[in-house]
Protein backbone atom coordinates (compact mmCIF):
# COMPACT_ATOMS: atom_id res chain seq x y z
CA UNK A 1 0.00 0.00 0.00
CA UNK A 2 1.43 3.39 -0.89
CA UNK A 3 1.92 5.96 1.79
CA UNK A 4 1.80 9.65 1.11
CA UNK A 5 2.12 13.00 2.82
CA UNK A 6 -0.56 15.36 1.56
CA UNK A 7 0.04 19.08 1.70
CA UNK A 8 -3.25 20.76 2.49
CA UNK A 9 -1.87 24.26 3.04
CA UNK A 10 1.64 25.47 2.27
CA UNK A 11 3.67 28.26 3.85
CA UNK A 12 5.62 30.57 1.54
CA UNK A 13 8.78 28.50 1.32
CA UNK A 14 8.50 24.81 2.04
CA UNK A 15 10.95 22.56 0.19
CA UNK A 16 12.27 19.02 0.45
CA UNK A 17 15.83 19.00 1.81
CA UNK A 18 18.39 16.36 2.70
CA UNK A 19 22.19 16.55 2.80
CA UNK A 20 22.31 17.76 -0.81
CA UNK A 21 24.63 16.83 -3.66
CA UNK A 22 28.31 16.35 -2.96
CA UNK A 23 31.18 16.39 -5.44
CA UNK A 24 29.58 18.53 -8.17
CA UNK A 25 31.72 21.59 -7.50
CA UNK A 26 33.49 21.20 -10.86
CA UNK A 27 30.07 21.46 -12.52
CA UNK A 28 29.18 24.54 -10.51
CA UNK A 29 26.53 22.94 -8.32
CA UNK A 30 26.80 23.73 -4.62
CA UNK A 31 26.02 20.89 -2.23
CA UNK A 32 22.77 22.53 -1.17
CA UNK A 33 20.60 20.61 1.26
CA UNK A 34 19.12 21.61 4.59
CA UNK A 35 20.00 25.09 5.85
CA UNK A 36 20.20 23.60 9.37
CA UNK A 37 21.78 20.14 9.23
CA UNK A 38 21.62 19.82 12.99
CA UNK A 39 17.83 19.74 12.65
CA UNK A 40 18.07 16.75 10.31
CA UNK A 41 20.49 14.99 12.66
CA UNK A 42 18.07 15.60 15.52
CA UNK A 43 15.16 14.26 13.43
CA UNK A 44 17.21 11.17 12.53
CA UNK A 45 17.97 10.67 16.24
CA UNK A 46 14.31 11.07 17.22
CA UNK A 47 13.11 8.60 14.59
CA UNK A 48 16.08 6.26 15.11
CA UNK A 49 17.19 6.52 11.48
CA UNK A 50 20.65 5.39 10.45
CA UNK A 51 21.24 8.23 8.04
CA UNK A 52 20.20 11.78 7.31
CA UNK A 53 16.58 11.86 6.11
CA UNK A 54 14.96 14.01 3.47
CA UNK A 55 12.62 16.33 5.35
CA UNK A 56 10.33 19.24 4.64
CA UNK A 57 12.14 22.47 5.40
CA UNK A 58 9.80 25.30 6.32
CA UNK A 59 11.16 28.85 6.23
CA UNK A 60 9.49 31.02 8.86
CA UNK A 61 6.17 29.23 8.67
CA UNK A 62 4.84 25.73 8.08
CA UNK A 63 1.66 24.40 6.53
CA UNK A 64 -1.10 21.82 7.00
CA UNK A 65 -0.46 18.15 6.35
CA UNK A 66 -2.21 14.79 6.34
CA UNK A 67 -1.03 11.20 5.86
CA UNK A 68 -2.59 8.18 4.18
CA UNK A 69 -0.98 5.64 6.53
CA UNK A 70 -0.14 5.88 10.26
CA UNK A 71 3.15 7.75 10.36
CA UNK A 72 5.43 8.96 13.12
CA UNK A 73 6.77 12.42 12.51
CA UNK A 74 9.57 14.43 14.08
CA UNK A 75 9.44 18.21 14.45
CA UNK A 76 12.88 19.83 14.73
CA UNK A 77 14.72 23.05 13.92
CA UNK A 78 13.15 26.45 14.59
CA UNK A 79 10.32 25.81 17.05
CA UNK A 80 6.96 26.55 15.45
CA UNK A 81 3.39 26.52 16.70
CA UNK A 82 2.07 23.03 15.87
CA UNK A 83 -1.30 21.34 16.29
CA UNK A 84 -2.91 18.04 15.45
CA UNK A 85 -6.64 18.48 14.88
CA UNK A 86 -6.52 21.80 16.69
CA UNK A 87 -4.73 20.49 19.77
CA UNK A 88 -1.31 22.02 20.50
CA UNK A 89 1.58 19.58 20.24
CA UNK A 90 5.21 19.90 21.28
CA UNK A 91 8.23 20.67 19.13
CA UNK A 92 11.53 18.73 19.30
CA UNK A 93 9.70 15.44 19.67
CA UNK A 94 7.94 12.70 17.75
CA UNK A 95 4.20 12.36 17.22
CA UNK A 96 2.03 9.73 15.60
CA UNK A 97 -0.08 11.18 12.80
CA UNK A 98 -3.06 9.09 11.73
CA UNK A 99 -5.02 9.16 8.47
CA UNK A 100 -7.82 11.70 8.78
CA UNK A 101 -5.92 13.90 11.22
CA UNK A 102 -4.69 17.35 10.25
CA UNK A 103 -1.23 18.48 11.29
CA UNK A 104 -1.03 22.28 11.29
CA UNK A 105 2.31 24.04 11.61
CA UNK A 106 2.28 27.81 12.01
CA UNK A 107 4.91 30.50 12.48
CA UNK A 108 8.30 30.17 14.17
CA UNK A 109 8.67 31.31 17.81
CA UNK A 110 12.41 31.75 17.31
CA UNK A 111 14.90 30.81 14.60
CA UNK A 112 13.96 30.57 10.93
CA UNK A 113 13.90 27.02 9.52
CA UNK A 114 11.62 24.33 10.98
CA UNK A 115 11.68 20.71 9.77
CA UNK A 116 8.97 18.09 9.41
CA UNK A 117 10.46 14.62 9.04
CA UNK A 118 8.45 11.44 8.52
CA UNK A 119 9.61 8.11 9.93
CA UNK A 120 9.14 6.48 6.55
CA UNK A 121 11.28 9.01 4.76
CA UNK A 122 10.41 10.66 1.47
CA UNK A 123 10.50 8.31 -1.50
CA UNK A 124 10.39 10.72 -4.41
CA UNK A 125 12.91 10.18 -7.24
CA UNK A 126 16.33 11.71 -6.42
CA UNK A 127 17.90 14.13 -8.92
CA UNK A 128 21.71 13.89 -9.21
CA UNK A 129 21.78 11.82 -6.03
CA UNK A 130 19.61 13.97 -3.76
CA UNK A 131 15.98 14.89 -3.14
CA UNK A 132 16.87 18.44 -2.12
CA UNK A 133 15.26 21.29 -3.97
CA UNK A 134 18.02 23.59 -5.22
CA UNK A 135 16.01 26.59 -6.34
CA UNK A 136 19.02 28.58 -7.54
CA UNK A 137 20.05 25.58 -9.61
CA UNK A 138 16.54 25.11 -10.99
CA UNK A 139 16.22 21.67 -9.37
CA UNK A 140 12.96 20.86 -7.61
CA UNK A 141 10.52 23.52 -6.49
CA UNK A 142 8.68 25.10 -3.62
CA UNK A 143 5.92 22.83 -2.29
CA UNK A 144 2.34 23.98 -2.78
CA UNK A 145 -1.09 23.10 -1.43
CA UNK A 146 -2.38 20.02 -3.26
CA UNK A 147 1.04 18.40 -3.55
CA UNK A 148 1.48 14.85 -2.38
CA UNK A 149 4.84 13.34 -1.48
CA UNK A 150 5.31 9.58 -1.69
CA UNK A 151 6.62 8.16 1.58
CA UNK A 152 7.97 4.80 2.59
CA UNK A 153 5.85 3.13 5.24
CA UNK A 154 6.58 3.63 8.90
CA UNK A 155 7.46 0.06 10.01
CA UNK A 156 6.99 0.83 13.69
CA UNK A 157 4.25 3.45 14.07
CA UNK A 158 3.68 2.32 17.65
CA UNK A 159 7.24 3.01 18.75
CA UNK A 160 7.00 5.07 21.93
CA UNK A 161 7.28 8.83 21.47
CA UNK A 162 10.56 10.51 22.29
CA UNK A 163 11.83 14.05 22.68
CA UNK A 164 15.21 15.68 22.17
CA UNK A 165 17.00 18.52 23.95
CA UNK A 166 17.86 20.64 20.92
CA UNK A 167 21.27 22.13 20.47
CA UNK A 168 20.76 25.84 21.28
CA UNK A 169 21.02 27.78 18.01
CA UNK A 170 17.84 29.82 17.51
CA UNK A 171 18.77 33.19 18.96
CA UNK A 172 22.33 34.01 17.88
CA UNK A 173 25.42 33.88 20.07
CA UNK A 174 29.10 33.14 19.45
CA UNK A 175 30.11 31.75 16.06
CA UNK A 176 33.50 30.17 15.33
CA UNK A 177 35.20 30.60 11.99
CA UNK A 178 38.45 29.33 10.47
CA UNK A 179 40.87 31.12 8.17
CA UNK A 180 40.18 30.82 4.45
CA UNK A 181 42.18 31.61 1.32
CA UNK A 182 41.62 35.37 1.60
CA UNK A 183 41.70 35.88 5.38
CA UNK A 184 45.37 36.91 5.27
CA UNK A 185 44.66 39.54 2.61
CA UNK A 186 42.51 41.65 4.94
CA UNK A 187 44.31 44.28 7.03
CA UNK A 188 44.93 42.96 10.54
CA UNK A 189 43.13 45.91 12.12
CA UNK A 190 40.10 45.32 9.88
CA UNK A 191 40.00 41.64 10.82
CA UNK A 192 40.26 42.60 14.50
CA UNK A 193 37.40 45.09 14.09
CA UNK A 194 35.31 42.37 12.43
CA UNK A 195 35.95 40.04 15.37
CA UNK A 196 34.76 42.60 17.93
CA UNK A 197 31.62 43.65 16.02
CA UNK A 198 28.14 42.42 16.91
CA UNK A 199 25.94 41.58 13.95
CA UNK A 200 22.21 41.25 13.39
CA UNK A 201 20.42 39.50 10.55
CA UNK A 202 19.65 41.69 7.54
CA UNK A 203 16.34 41.35 5.70
CA UNK A 204 18.07 40.21 2.49
CA UNK A 205 18.73 36.71 3.81
CA UNK A 206 17.74 33.34 2.38
CA UNK A 207 19.06 29.81 1.80
CA UNK A 208 21.97 31.24 -0.20
CA UNK A 209 23.26 33.46 2.55
CA UNK A 210 22.56 35.64 5.54
CA UNK A 211 23.33 39.33 5.36
CA UNK A 212 24.84 40.63 8.58
CA UNK A 213 24.47 44.22 9.65
CA UNK A 214 26.30 46.11 12.37
CA UNK A 215 26.51 49.64 13.64
CA UNK A 216 30.10 50.44 12.63
CA UNK A 217 31.64 51.44 9.30
CA UNK A 218 31.62 49.01 6.35
CA UNK A 219 34.60 46.63 6.22
CA UNK A 220 37.49 47.34 3.87
CA UNK A 221 38.71 44.41 1.81
CA UNK A 222 42.22 45.85 1.38
CA UNK A 223 44.39 43.58 -0.74
CA UNK A 224 41.53 41.12 -0.99
CA UNK A 225 39.61 43.34 -3.44
CA UNK A 226 39.71 42.68 -7.19
CA UNK A 227 40.65 39.01 -6.99
CA UNK A 228 40.07 36.31 -9.58
CA UNK A 229 36.77 34.53 -8.89
CA UNK A 230 37.61 31.55 -6.74
CA UNK A 231 35.97 28.65 -4.93
CA UNK A 232 33.59 29.30 -2.08
CA UNK A 233 33.10 27.04 0.91
CA UNK A 234 29.71 26.81 2.59
CA UNK A 235 30.07 29.01 5.67
CA UNK A 236 32.32 31.56 3.98
CA UNK A 237 31.89 35.11 5.27
CA UNK A 238 31.84 37.11 2.06
CA UNK A 239 32.51 40.82 2.01
CA UNK A 240 30.55 42.44 -0.82
CA UNK A 241 31.77 45.58 -2.55
CA UNK A 242 29.93 47.81 -0.09
CA UNK A 243 31.71 46.16 2.86
CA UNK A 244 28.73 44.28 4.28
CA UNK A 245 29.34 40.65 5.27
CA UNK A 246 27.18 37.76 4.06
CA UNK A 247 27.59 34.29 5.53
CA UNK A 248 27.03 31.85 2.69
CA UNK A 249 24.69 28.94 3.37
CA UNK A 250 24.13 25.58 1.71
CA UNK A 251 22.58 26.91 -1.52
CA UNK A 252 25.36 29.44 -2.16
CA UNK A 253 27.26 29.86 -5.39
CA UNK A 254 30.33 27.61 -5.82
CA UNK A 255 32.58 30.44 -6.92
CA UNK A 256 32.73 34.16 -6.45
CA UNK A 257 34.95 37.18 -6.66
CA UNK A 258 34.13 38.99 -3.45
CA UNK A 259 36.73 38.28 -0.77
CA UNK A 260 35.91 36.17 2.24
CA UNK A 261 37.25 37.01 5.65
CA UNK A 262 36.85 33.46 7.01
CA UNK A 263 34.74 30.29 6.98
CA UNK A 264 32.19 29.48 9.70
CA UNK A 265 32.75 25.92 10.93
CA UNK A 266 30.02 23.40 10.16
CA UNK A 267 29.06 23.01 13.81
CA UNK A 268 28.13 26.70 14.12
CA UNK A 269 26.56 27.29 10.71
CA UNK A 270 23.04 26.37 11.91
CA UNK A 271 23.33 29.25 14.40
CA UNK A 272 23.74 31.62 11.43
CA UNK A 273 21.02 29.98 9.32
CA UNK A 274 18.62 30.16 12.27
CA UNK A 275 19.55 33.69 13.35
CA UNK A 276 16.23 35.47 13.81
CA UNK A 277 15.61 39.16 13.24
CA UNK A 278 16.96 40.89 16.32
CA UNK A 279 19.31 38.02 17.26
CA UNK A 280 23.00 38.91 17.55
CA UNK A 281 26.14 37.01 16.58
CA UNK A 282 29.82 37.65 17.20
CA UNK A 283 32.69 35.81 15.52
CA UNK A 284 35.81 34.19 16.92
CA UNK A 285 38.69 33.02 14.74
CA UNK A 286 40.09 29.52 15.31
CA UNK A 287 43.31 28.10 13.94
CA UNK A 288 42.97 25.65 11.04
CA UNK A 289 43.94 22.78 13.35
CA UNK A 290 41.31 23.78 15.93
CA UNK A 291 38.64 24.00 13.22
CA UNK A 292 39.64 20.66 11.72
CA UNK A 293 39.20 19.00 15.11
CA UNK A 294 35.56 20.18 15.15
CA UNK A 295 34.71 18.28 11.95
CA UNK A 296 31.99 15.66 12.39
CA UNK A 297 30.75 13.11 9.87
CA UNK A 298 26.99 12.80 9.32
CA UNK A 299 27.02 9.52 11.27
CA UNK A 300 28.80 11.23 14.19
CA UNK A 301 26.25 14.06 14.17
CA UNK A 302 23.39 11.57 14.44
CA UNK A 303 25.17 9.61 17.17
CA UNK A 304 25.73 12.82 19.16
CA UNK A 305 22.10 13.84 18.72
CA UNK A 306 20.96 10.42 19.96
CA UNK A 307 22.59 11.10 23.34
CA UNK A 308 20.10 13.96 23.76
CA UNK A 309 16.99 11.83 23.07
CA UNK A 310 14.78 10.80 25.98
CA UNK A 311 11.44 8.99 26.31
CA UNK A 312 8.34 11.13 26.33
CA UNK A 313 5.45 10.27 28.54
CA UNK A 314 2.18 10.69 26.71
CA UNK A 315 -1.00 12.58 27.01
CA UNK A 316 -3.93 10.20 27.60
CA UNK A 317 -6.13 12.15 25.20
CA UNK A 318 -3.76 11.21 22.39
CA UNK A 319 -3.94 7.60 23.43
CA UNK A 320 -7.69 7.44 22.99
CA UNK A 321 -7.23 8.60 19.40
CA UNK A 322 -4.61 5.98 18.89
CA UNK A 323 -6.76 3.17 20.30
CA UNK A 324 -9.55 4.23 18.01
CA UNK A 325 -7.41 3.39 15.01
CA UNK A 326 -6.67 -0.21 14.09
CA UNK A 327 -2.91 -0.58 14.30
CA UNK A 328 -1.83 -4.01 13.21
CA UNK A 329 -0.12 -5.63 16.16
CA UNK A 330 0.01 -2.22 17.76
CA UNK A 331 0.99 -2.16 21.38
CA UNK A 332 0.58 1.16 23.06
CA UNK A 333 2.50 1.90 26.19
CA UNK A 334 1.24 5.24 27.32
CA UNK A 335 1.48 7.22 30.47
CA UNK A 336 -0.07 10.53 31.24
CA UNK A 337 1.60 13.92 31.43
CA UNK A 338 2.66 15.77 28.33
CA UNK A 339 6.07 17.29 28.11
CA UNK A 340 5.91 20.56 26.25
Amino acid sequence: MTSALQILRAGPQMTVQDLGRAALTAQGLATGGAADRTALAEAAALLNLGQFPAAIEMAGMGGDFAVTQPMRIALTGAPMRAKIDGKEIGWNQTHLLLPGQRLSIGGAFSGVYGYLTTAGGIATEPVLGSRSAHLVGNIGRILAAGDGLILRQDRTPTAPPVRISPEPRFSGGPVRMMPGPQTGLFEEAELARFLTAEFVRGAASNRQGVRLEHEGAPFQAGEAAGLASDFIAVGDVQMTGDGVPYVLLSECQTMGGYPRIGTVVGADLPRIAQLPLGGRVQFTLLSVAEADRLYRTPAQLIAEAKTRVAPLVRDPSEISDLLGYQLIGGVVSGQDEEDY
Partner: protein
Amino acid sequence: MAGQEAQTPTHEILPLGQDGVLVRFARKPDLSALSAAQRFRAALAGQQHSEITEVAPSLASVLLRFDPEATPRSRIEAIAQKALAELGPNAELPAPARRWHLPVAFGADAGPQLAEAAALAGLTQEAAVRQLVEADLRVLAIGFAPGQPYIGLLPDTWNLPRLSQLTPKVPAGALVVAVRQLVLFCNDSTTGWRQIGQTGFRPFWPHSPTPFRLEVGDAIRIEPVSQTDLAALAPERTDGLGGARLEITR
Protein backbone atom coordinates in the same frame (compact mmCIF):
# COMPACT_ATOMS: atom_id res chain seq x y z
CA MET B 1 66.64 19.70 -6.18
CA ALA B 2 66.95 23.46 -6.33
CA GLY B 3 66.52 23.40 -10.11
CA GLN B 4 63.23 21.57 -9.84
CA GLU B 5 62.02 23.94 -7.11
CA ALA B 6 62.74 26.88 -9.38
CA GLN B 7 60.50 25.39 -12.08
CA THR B 8 57.50 24.94 -9.80
CA PRO B 9 54.82 27.53 -10.64
CA THR B 10 54.20 30.17 -7.98
CA HIS B 11 51.53 28.84 -5.66
CA GLU B 12 49.97 28.98 -2.20
CA ILE B 13 48.41 26.00 -0.41
CA LEU B 14 45.46 27.25 1.63
CA PRO B 15 42.54 25.90 3.69
CA LEU B 16 39.03 26.12 2.21
CA GLY B 17 36.62 24.91 4.86
CA GLN B 18 37.11 21.84 7.03
CA ASP B 19 37.22 19.45 4.07
CA GLY B 20 39.05 21.47 1.43
CA VAL B 21 42.55 22.44 0.34
CA LEU B 22 42.93 25.20 -2.23
CA VAL B 23 46.04 25.44 -4.38
CA ARG B 24 46.13 29.01 -5.66
CA PHE B 25 48.47 29.96 -8.51
CA ALA B 26 47.64 33.66 -8.64
CA ARG B 27 45.29 36.15 -7.03
CA LYS B 28 44.29 37.79 -10.31
CA PRO B 29 43.53 35.89 -13.50
CA ASP B 30 46.50 35.49 -15.85
CA LEU B 31 47.39 32.99 -18.51
CA SER B 32 50.21 31.22 -16.65
CA ALA B 33 48.00 30.69 -13.58
CA LEU B 34 45.17 29.38 -15.79
CA SER B 35 47.59 27.03 -17.48
CA ALA B 36 49.06 25.87 -14.16
CA ALA B 37 45.58 25.25 -12.72
CA GLN B 38 44.44 23.19 -15.73
CA ARG B 39 47.69 21.20 -15.87
CA PHE B 40 47.72 20.61 -12.11
CA ARG B 41 44.12 19.38 -12.25
CA ALA B 42 45.00 17.01 -15.11
CA ALA B 43 48.10 15.72 -13.28
CA LEU B 44 46.13 14.92 -10.12
CA ALA B 45 43.34 13.29 -12.11
CA GLY B 46 45.94 11.09 -13.81
CA GLN B 47 47.47 10.06 -10.48
CA GLN B 48 44.12 8.88 -9.06
CA HIS B 49 44.63 9.62 -5.39
CA SER B 50 41.93 7.82 -3.43
CA GLU B 51 42.37 10.30 -0.54
CA ILE B 52 41.09 13.15 -2.73
CA THR B 53 37.32 12.95 -3.18
CA GLU B 54 36.94 15.82 -5.63
CA VAL B 55 39.22 17.93 -7.83
CA ALA B 56 37.80 21.14 -9.32
CA PRO B 57 39.65 23.79 -11.33
CA SER B 58 38.90 27.51 -11.23
CA LEU B 59 40.53 30.43 -13.00
CA ALA B 60 43.67 30.50 -10.93
CA SER B 61 43.30 27.71 -8.42
CA VAL B 62 42.39 24.06 -7.92
CA LEU B 63 40.19 22.80 -5.09
CA LEU B 64 40.99 19.43 -3.53
CA ARG B 65 38.20 18.04 -1.39
CA PHE B 66 38.84 15.25 1.11
CA ASP B 67 37.10 13.25 3.81
CA PRO B 68 38.53 14.58 7.09
CA GLU B 69 37.48 11.41 8.92
CA ALA B 70 39.68 9.26 6.65
CA THR B 71 42.53 11.62 5.76
CA PRO B 72 44.29 14.43 7.61
CA ARG B 73 44.69 17.77 5.85
CA SER B 74 48.48 17.41 5.99
CA ARG B 75 48.33 14.32 3.75
CA ILE B 76 46.39 16.23 1.06
CA GLU B 77 48.85 19.12 1.30
CA ALA B 78 51.75 16.68 0.85
CA ILE B 79 50.15 15.15 -2.26
CA ALA B 80 49.66 18.65 -3.67
CA GLN B 81 53.27 19.65 -2.91
CA LYS B 82 54.61 16.61 -4.72
CA ALA B 83 52.43 17.13 -7.80
CA LEU B 84 53.35 20.82 -7.88
CA ALA B 85 57.06 20.04 -7.79
CA GLU B 86 56.62 17.82 -10.85
CA LEU B 87 54.46 20.28 -12.78
CA GLY B 88 57.03 22.56 -14.43
CA PRO B 89 56.42 25.97 -16.00
CA ASN B 90 54.26 26.40 -19.07
CA ALA B 91 52.21 29.44 -19.89
CA GLU B 92 50.02 27.91 -22.59
CA LEU B 93 46.57 26.43 -22.33
CA PRO B 94 46.07 22.95 -23.73
CA ALA B 95 44.50 23.04 -27.25
CA PRO B 96 40.69 22.87 -27.06
CA ALA B 97 39.04 19.53 -27.84
CA ARG B 98 35.67 21.15 -28.56
CA ARG B 99 34.37 24.49 -29.79
CA TRP B 100 30.89 25.93 -29.16
CA HIS B 101 29.36 28.42 -31.61
CA LEU B 102 27.09 30.55 -29.48
CA PRO B 103 24.40 32.94 -30.81
CA VAL B 104 24.22 36.10 -28.67
CA ALA B 105 22.11 39.27 -29.02
CA PHE B 106 23.93 42.40 -27.79
CA GLY B 107 22.78 45.74 -26.42
CA ALA B 108 19.32 47.27 -25.96
CA ASP B 109 16.99 45.02 -23.91
CA ALA B 110 19.34 42.06 -24.38
CA GLY B 111 22.28 43.99 -22.94
CA PRO B 112 21.20 47.08 -21.02
CA GLN B 113 24.72 47.81 -19.74
CA LEU B 114 26.58 47.32 -23.05
CA ALA B 115 27.00 51.06 -23.57
CA GLU B 116 28.37 51.53 -20.05
CA ALA B 117 30.73 48.54 -20.30
CA ALA B 118 31.98 49.58 -23.75
CA ALA B 119 32.64 53.13 -22.50
CA LEU B 120 34.63 51.75 -19.54
CA ALA B 121 36.65 49.65 -22.01
CA GLY B 122 37.20 52.79 -24.13
CA LEU B 123 35.30 51.37 -27.11
CA THR B 124 32.20 52.15 -29.14
CA GLN B 125 29.41 49.59 -28.72
CA GLU B 126 30.09 48.27 -32.24
CA ALA B 127 33.83 47.93 -31.59
CA ALA B 128 33.13 46.25 -28.23
CA VAL B 129 30.92 43.60 -29.85
CA ARG B 130 33.48 43.10 -32.62
CA GLN B 131 36.24 42.44 -30.06
CA LEU B 132 34.09 39.87 -28.27
CA VAL B 133 33.23 38.11 -31.55
CA GLU B 134 36.87 38.01 -32.64
CA ALA B 135 38.27 36.92 -29.26
CA ASP B 136 39.71 33.44 -28.82
CA LEU B 137 37.56 32.50 -25.84
CA ARG B 138 37.71 29.47 -23.56
CA VAL B 139 35.64 28.14 -20.70
CA LEU B 140 38.06 29.01 -17.89
CA ALA B 141 36.00 27.67 -15.01
CA ILE B 142 32.49 26.49 -14.21
CA GLY B 143 30.92 27.77 -11.07
CA PHE B 144 28.84 30.22 -9.09
CA ALA B 145 25.72 28.34 -10.29
CA PRO B 146 25.25 24.92 -11.93
CA GLY B 147 27.07 24.60 -15.26
CA GLN B 148 27.70 28.31 -15.41
CA PRO B 149 30.86 29.22 -17.32
CA TYR B 150 33.47 31.86 -16.73
CA ILE B 151 34.68 32.66 -20.26
CA GLY B 152 37.85 34.55 -21.23
CA LEU B 153 40.30 35.97 -21.15
CA LEU B 154 39.23 39.18 -22.89
CA PRO B 155 41.77 41.81 -23.99
CA ASP B 156 43.19 43.90 -21.15
CA THR B 157 40.90 46.86 -21.93
CA TRP B 158 38.08 44.68 -20.56
CA ASN B 159 39.58 44.61 -17.07
CA LEU B 160 36.41 46.26 -15.73
CA PRO B 161 35.70 46.39 -12.01
CA ARG B 162 32.66 44.69 -10.56
CA LEU B 163 29.77 46.97 -9.60
CA SER B 164 29.89 48.04 -5.96
CA GLN B 165 26.13 47.39 -5.65
CA LEU B 166 24.67 44.06 -6.73
CA THR B 167 22.11 44.15 -9.54
CA PRO B 168 19.19 42.32 -7.93
CA LYS B 169 18.17 40.41 -11.03
CA VAL B 170 19.44 39.65 -14.51
CA PRO B 171 17.46 37.11 -16.56
CA ALA B 172 18.46 33.54 -17.43
CA GLY B 173 20.69 33.63 -20.50
CA ALA B 174 22.25 36.99 -19.57
CA LEU B 175 25.84 37.48 -20.77
CA VAL B 176 27.66 39.67 -18.25
CA VAL B 177 31.18 41.10 -18.16
CA ALA B 178 33.84 42.06 -15.60
CA VAL B 179 37.55 41.51 -14.91
CA ARG B 180 38.43 40.34 -18.49
CA GLN B 181 35.76 37.64 -18.40
CA LEU B 182 32.25 36.85 -19.52
CA VAL B 183 29.74 34.88 -17.48
CA LEU B 184 26.63 33.31 -18.96
CA PHE B 185 23.81 32.90 -16.44
CA CYS B 186 21.69 29.72 -16.45
CA ASN B 187 18.95 31.20 -14.30
CA ASP B 188 17.68 34.56 -13.15
CA SER B 189 20.44 35.81 -10.92
CA THR B 190 21.83 38.54 -8.73
CA THR B 191 25.16 39.85 -10.01
CA GLY B 192 27.81 42.48 -9.58
CA TRP B 193 28.75 42.25 -13.30
CA ARG B 194 27.34 44.27 -16.22
CA GLN B 195 24.86 42.67 -18.61
CA ILE B 196 25.88 43.24 -22.25
CA GLY B 197 24.02 40.48 -24.09
CA GLN B 198 21.61 37.60 -23.96
CA THR B 199 21.47 34.05 -25.35
CA GLY B 200 18.98 31.20 -25.51
CA PHE B 201 21.76 28.75 -24.59
CA ARG B 202 21.44 27.24 -21.11
CA PRO B 203 24.70 25.75 -19.80
CA PHE B 204 22.65 23.68 -17.30
CA TRP B 205 19.51 22.02 -18.63
CA PRO B 206 18.38 19.63 -15.92
CA HIS B 207 15.91 17.79 -18.15
CA SER B 208 18.60 16.75 -20.63
CA PRO B 209 20.55 13.46 -20.47
CA THR B 210 23.69 15.65 -20.39
CA PRO B 211 22.54 18.37 -18.00
CA PHE B 212 25.96 20.05 -17.75
CA ARG B 213 26.79 21.19 -21.28
CA LEU B 214 30.17 22.87 -21.00
CA GLU B 215 33.56 21.65 -19.81
CA VAL B 216 36.54 23.65 -18.62
CA GLY B 217 38.79 24.09 -21.67
CA ASP B 218 35.99 24.28 -24.29
CA ALA B 219 36.54 27.00 -26.91
CA ILE B 220 33.69 29.50 -27.38
CA ARG B 221 32.97 31.46 -30.56
CA ILE B 222 30.29 34.14 -30.22
CA GLU B 223 27.96 34.68 -33.19
CA PRO B 224 25.99 37.93 -32.92
CA VAL B 225 22.26 37.71 -33.71
CA SER B 226 19.41 40.22 -33.63
CA GLN B 227 16.90 40.34 -30.80
CA THR B 228 14.28 39.01 -33.23
CA ASP B 229 16.46 36.00 -34.06
CA LEU B 230 17.08 35.47 -30.36
CA ALA B 231 13.34 35.11 -29.73
CA ALA B 232 13.26 32.21 -32.20
CA LEU B 233 16.11 30.55 -30.31
CA ALA B 234 14.26 30.47 -26.96
CA PRO B 235 15.54 27.64 -24.76
CA GLU B 236 12.10 26.05 -24.46
CA ARG B 237 12.02 25.62 -28.25
CA THR B 238 15.60 24.45 -28.65
CA ASP B 239 16.13 21.99 -25.78
CA GLY B 240 18.10 24.67 -23.99
CA LEU B 241 20.64 24.97 -26.78
CA GLY B 242 19.51 28.36 -28.06
CA GLY B 243 20.93 27.57 -31.51
CA ALA B 244 24.42 26.79 -30.14
CA ARG B 245 26.46 24.31 -32.20
CA LEU B 246 29.17 22.02 -30.84
CA GLU B 247 32.17 21.40 -33.08
CA ILE B 248 34.62 18.63 -32.15
CA THR B 249 38.08 19.95 -32.94
CA ARG B 250 40.24 16.92 -32.16
